[in-house]
């Protein structure tokens, strides 16, 4: 295949491309799977945690 005679090489070449295509296929198939937001950040406790999170991130 494409001038590569050793099966151990063209197979790797082919599988790399197929693996990338698998990622593309999965990404398209699952494009809208899963909620956009899964956690309600409007709750007061979450909002507080979120604020704390931001402070810690800034400190770090």
């Amino acid at each position, binding site marked *: 295949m494409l001038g590569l005679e*050793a099966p151990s090489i063209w197979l790797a070449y082919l599988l790399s491309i197929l693996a*990338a295509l698998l990622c593309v296929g999965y990404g398209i198939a699952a494009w809208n*799977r*899963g909620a956009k937001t899964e956690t309600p950040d409007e709750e007061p406790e979450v909002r507080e945690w979120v604020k704390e999170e931001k402070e810690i991130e800034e400190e770090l």
Partner: protein
Amino acid sequence: MWTYTVVVLYLFITAWLGWRGYRGTRTALDYLVAGRGVHPYIMAMSYGATFISTSAIIGFGGAAAVFGMGLLWLVFANIFVGIFLAFILFGDRTRRMGYNLEAHTFPELMGNRFDSRFIQGFSGVVIFLFMPLYTSVVIIGAAKFIATSFGLDYQVALFGFSTLIAVYVIMGGLKGVMYTDAFQGSIMLVGMLFLLFFTYRMLGGVTASHRALADLAPLAREVFPGTGQQGWASFPLFGSRFWWVMVSTLIMGVGIGVLAQPQLAVRFMTVRSRRELNRAILIGGIFILVVVGVVYVVGALTNVYFFRQAGRASIQAAAGDVDEIIPLFISQALPGWFGVLFLLTLISAAMSTISSQFHAVGTSIGRDFFEKSLRRGRGAGSIAVTRLGILAGIVFSVFLGYWLERRFGGTGTAIIARGTAIFFGICAAAFLPMYAGGLLTRRITRSGAIAGMLSGLGSALFWLLFMHLKESSALLLCRELFGRDSLVEGVRTGFIVWDQVDPICVALPLSLLVTVGVSLATSPPPAAHLARCFAGVGRKRSPGRRPGPEPS
């Protein structure tokens, strides 16, 4: 002159994007909510740009020029394991559990999952001690290319680039890093596509260049006698020295080790929902294929170029310096303007990886070890320790970058590829069983996780110091104590060449067995704790209720 102009313009755009992201984070409710609006392209590019560094481009590209196109198996592993499996198996679970357990770092996730300050502190120390090895090889990669393209001394390039990195990291390169990562990832993508196109065109097309590489098999065998090298378009002889390096160190070490990389796992915790992860798989797969796939193919094909130019193999043209092969090829074979684009590609690759590495180094010592483990959650002083940790990490990495090149430069050692593989191997042995076990099952216990981590790390270090010839001979401890370079030097059992077997092949299975064995022998964690860890984990849609704050 315009090289400098383009570089300055690039740095200006990076700084502007960093500032924009930083300002965006401040005005939004929080950084997680800001994350909600982040396009999956940015998330995937950020993951990809953090994953792929100069280590992959310069180091593994050079390794491909030595070992050949068989390294494409690592591309397959990088995409299938590092993207597809990592995102599907670990991505959403890490994100959800990190949220449930209020974890900000990888050690914190593990520590809270197993309710153990020791796990958090110890993981923090492991990252702090060993991450600089990985950082140093990323810096070496960039410094090598800068030295070649500007005709500078390696040391000058090393210290100049390190200063730039230090300023970038300290001046807030960590904030708004998603935007700069995406910009840098895009540059990498374009740069590598050009590289592939030019190389194939210059060598006469896809099929012709592969054939020309296959025809060089006699030269490959002559340059690497007795190693099992059979040609750059063939896989090394089964059970030979090259076969073991390629399969156990480069392909398995890096291909599997990527699953337990703290700076990558933390990326999962920054996204908002499972949907973003699903979308990111698409872009991540293409990104890895283009960036690493291209560089391994081009790395092997450099042999055709150097042979046509001077009748020599790449390693001979680079005077035995594996990490010099790609910089030399770019500067000699490709048009001058491409050198500038490639320089930007490399600075991008290095910066995005190094900033996340130093972030991991600083937080592991400041938050995980000092604040949570040593001071048992009393936070005072942890920020100063984090900053000192980052500074110590930078100094140590630059020193390693200097020393490693001095010790191994020009000896035919793929310093960058091996340094990366060692770090990935240590992470896999120490963290992978408890990380995978902690996310995927409820049965792994605290004792199991601790025993697995200690046995994995212990056996990996033992193997590096006393068994694996390349490292044990360099670290000298084995020679001091036992008068030889490796305890198993020259020992062969069937096809197993023991002094070439990578630590990951021994330490990971051992760590896995110990984790499972000890977990089965100890009683499972309390149901309430497990319920808190696994709330919403593994479900298609979660009820969305977050458990109450952790008692501190």
